[in-house]
């Protein structure tokens, strides 16, 4: 379930990078982002990566022909089967890093390289995907953002630290708890 949700996030990102027209996204910037994503995927825990690869196959089967090819290529181009065979170990921190890198890409890429309205659109999709994650996993992911933030510098570090706030993720976890929601709202108002 979680692998499928993360696979959808990654697939949306790959399809955007692969098919955005040049007016929307600079091609060299897209290639750089794709390579960075490949490295992040290769570093995943072998068991989770196996689930992710299987999820990509399912997503590809429900995509148009060219999109299907792009999703299939994730596995081939990034040599993910080989990465599984190497049986690396990892944890939620690496998934957090993938999500953080996608967010930093959309939030901080220069307007001349990536259309700002399109980047907002992609982040809105990502936000909804994160809100829909299994609550226990989302809790781990939120905590992981704080752990990995020091690995980033400057605006990127601030962006990663602000992910839970920006995507209203604590509110998503507290959806059935009106007292907690009121606390979060008061905190948000105070921060403004």
């Amino acid at each position: 379930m979680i692998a499928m949700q993360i696979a959808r996030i990654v697939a949306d990102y790959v399809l955007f990078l692969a098919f955005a027209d040049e007016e929307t996204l600079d091609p060299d910037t897209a290639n750089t982002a794709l390579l960075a994503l490949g490295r992040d995927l290769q570093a995943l825990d072998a068991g989770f990566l196996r689930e992710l690869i299987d999820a990509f196959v399912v997503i590809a089967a429900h995509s148009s022909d060219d999109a299907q090819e792009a999703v299939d290529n994730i596995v081939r181009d990034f040599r993910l089967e080989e990465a599984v065979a190497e049986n690396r170990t990892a944890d939620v921190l690496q998934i957090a890093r993938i999500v953080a890198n996608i967010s930093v890409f959309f939030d901080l890429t220069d307007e001349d390289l990536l259309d700002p309205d399109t980047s907002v659109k992609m982040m809105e999709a990502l936000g909804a995907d994160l809100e829909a994650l299994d609550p226990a996993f989302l809790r781990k992911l939120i905590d992981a953002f704080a752990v990995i933030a020091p690995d980033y510098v400057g605006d990127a570090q601030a962006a990663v630290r602000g992910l839970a706030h920006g995507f209203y993720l604590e509110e998503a976890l507290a959806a059935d708890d009106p007292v907690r929601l009121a606390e979060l709202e008061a905190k948000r108002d105070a921060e403004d």
Partner: protein
Amino acid sequence: MSTLRHLRKARPRTTYDPPKIGWAKETFKSQANWRVYNDSATGGRPGQAPTLMRTMPDGTTRPVKFDGVEGDTVIDRKWSIRDQTNARAQVARQSEVLAQHRLIGTWEVPTVVQRTKAFKLLKKMNVTNIKVRIVKP
């Protein structure tokens, strides 16, 4: 006589030109629900986004993308609301370009929760020319 005097004072109603909508290419290959939602905005075109030209302080212009057009209103469909740097920058951009074109914008969101977030974000940013309504997917 008094009626005629009243008519003399009446000023003609100011009329504005219809919005000058441009169209920009927009390619999303995702089959996810958010893409279907964005593509189904009233007045939208597949593979294209309606745009308004924003005049920058130096006189140059840049397009601001929306998702649909309905009469004098431009529509932006928001699958989720965020409170992040580039999201706030977009709010400022949209509000400015709407003011420049004397238009009102509408954000269409899928749920009550997202509408509440949208209201609060727009209020915090003192934006009054963007309305919010729920349009279910």
